């Protein structure tokens, strides 16, 4: 069958249009279903009461608190490590075998499935270091998981700071460290923050790495060492074990809205950043 190039182009275009519509519609469908079924479940009570009767009754307060604690610990550990690595790679060394090893390590770490992080955290933090199923074990496991994201985004942000700023700073008598802390890092902040926000999103939604390290106890966490259930884990258990579909939808809606806000913030920051650079 021979088609004229023009007809062929029209057919292909229609075909691509159709495929794109499917992809976009399917993705939007997920969003719409969660929000449509979940939003009616949301109320002040849902957000401010602890779960009761294994999650059949009450709200999700303790899981929100656990999620926040876990995410906080993860970033508290991962941010200095990630930004420090990025500073070393961009400011303190030239491209060499060493930097390639460091970058390769970060890229490999980024590809490791979360369940492997879960296994690792379980053996190291829960068992060997005897932190037990706890906020601390879960937070540290998540820290390692988001580390590559923070390294990569920080490195890009620092690299995009004009070289002339460093030169000027040196010529005015600054040490390397003063140039970094007073000029380079302040200019790179929006990019670094973007990486941190992305990591927050990943930590909030993570299940596999958390369920074996933070546990799934349904109570308000009282210390770093208390076992606790995050929103994502709570949602998984409600849905998988069919505890309560309305509560599952409600929890999913809170999760999805949190992720939406985080992503929109990231997007907004990046746009602002790009505009400022040009």
């Amino acid at each position, binding site marked *: 069958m021979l088609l004229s190039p023009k007809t062929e182009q029209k057919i292909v275009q229609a075909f691509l249009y159709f495929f*794109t519509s499917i992809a976009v519609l399917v*993705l939007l469908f997920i969003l719409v279903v969660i929000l449509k079924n979940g939003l009616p479940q949301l109320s002040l009570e849902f957000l401010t009461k602890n779960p009761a009767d294994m999650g059949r009754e009450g709200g999700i307060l303790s899981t929100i608190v656990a999620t926040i604690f876990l995410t906080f610990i993860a970033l508290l550990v991962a941010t200095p490590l990630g930004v420090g690595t990025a500073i070393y790679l961009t400011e303190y060394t030239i491209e060499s075998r060493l930097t390639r090893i460091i970058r390769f390590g970060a890229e490999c770490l980024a590809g490791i499935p979360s369940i492997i992080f879960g296994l690792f955290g379980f053996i190291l933090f829960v068992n060997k270091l005897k932190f037990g199923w706890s906020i601390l074990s879960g937070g540290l496991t998540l820290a390692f998981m988001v580390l590559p994201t923070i390294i990569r985004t920080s490195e890009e942000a620092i690299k995009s700071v004009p070289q002339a700023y460093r030169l000027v700073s040196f010529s005015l008598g600054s040490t390397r460290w003063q140039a970094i802390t007073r000029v380079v890092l302040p200019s790179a902040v929006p990019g670094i923050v973007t990486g941190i926000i992305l990591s927050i999103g990943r930590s909030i939604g993570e299940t596999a790495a958390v369920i074996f390290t933070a546990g799934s106890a349904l109570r308000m966490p009282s210390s770093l060492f208390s076992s606790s259930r995050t929103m994502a884990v709570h949602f998984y258990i409600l849905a998988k074990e069919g505890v309560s579909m309305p509560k599952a939808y409600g929890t999913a809606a809170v999760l999805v809205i949190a992720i939406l806000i985080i992503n929109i913030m990231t997007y907004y920051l990046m746009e602002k950043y790009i505009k400022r650079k040009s």
Partner: protein
Amino acid sequence: MTKLDKNDRLIRISLLVVAFSAVSVLAVITIFIFEQGTPIMFKYGLKSFLFGQDWYPSEKSFGLLPMIVGSLMVTFGALIIGVPLGLASAIFLTEFSHRRLTRFLKPVIELLAGIPSVVYGFIGLMFLVPFIRENFGGPGLSVLAASIILGIMILPTVISIAIDSIRAVPDSYREGSIALGATKWQTVRMVVLPAARSGIVAGIILGMGRAIGETMAVIMVAGNAADIPGSILQPVRTLTSNIALEMGYASGEHREALFATGVILFIIIMILNTIANLTSARQKKR
């Protein structure tokens, strides 16, 4: 002077130590997983682990073949669904759609990459599984359901990486081709896609890594029977699900066998990572 020099050296050394955090974490993870997982593999023989068909931990029978086959099946299925949809969308959004539509849709698609995997699994469980059960038969929890859900999950990854690498092709290539009288589609097919090929391949491999490593969404829709499925409508268990399903109560050799599952998963992922790294490095070089 000497004090400043000392400070600088101190900072440099501390940063070097910090910079090794990612490499050290990777090393420690590798060591722990292998330390926990390999002894039992050698105790019962590598062959019985890799090719044994029976997974009965209580009877000390640790055949992982059903799970290896399961992981490969759902990953392959995810690619069949995710790659054509993803590539078509990327080509459409970069070459054929209005700029304004692309500016709106690209962030929306990237946003969907951030939706937690459990949410995808849940949607699959609520809508896709009953749909398959009623229209195609079988239990619904199946290879097909897992493949479709994973295919959708890797869409954002495939689309955004493909868009980036198609955009990286210089406009002069397109102009040259159009100037020679080619239509837009001919230009895309003969000039743009070949030039963007290694970036697109790297994106597909990353998507593949995401599919093979995904756990919770798969557990929710795959049915999780530890047998090699006879058809795509039958339940399946992947390597990741095998770990997640039994880790909660396993002990002794059973737990070690789950770590052995982790070892196999780890090796598969590392191979994929290395391929992806090499492919994207090749594009950068060009």
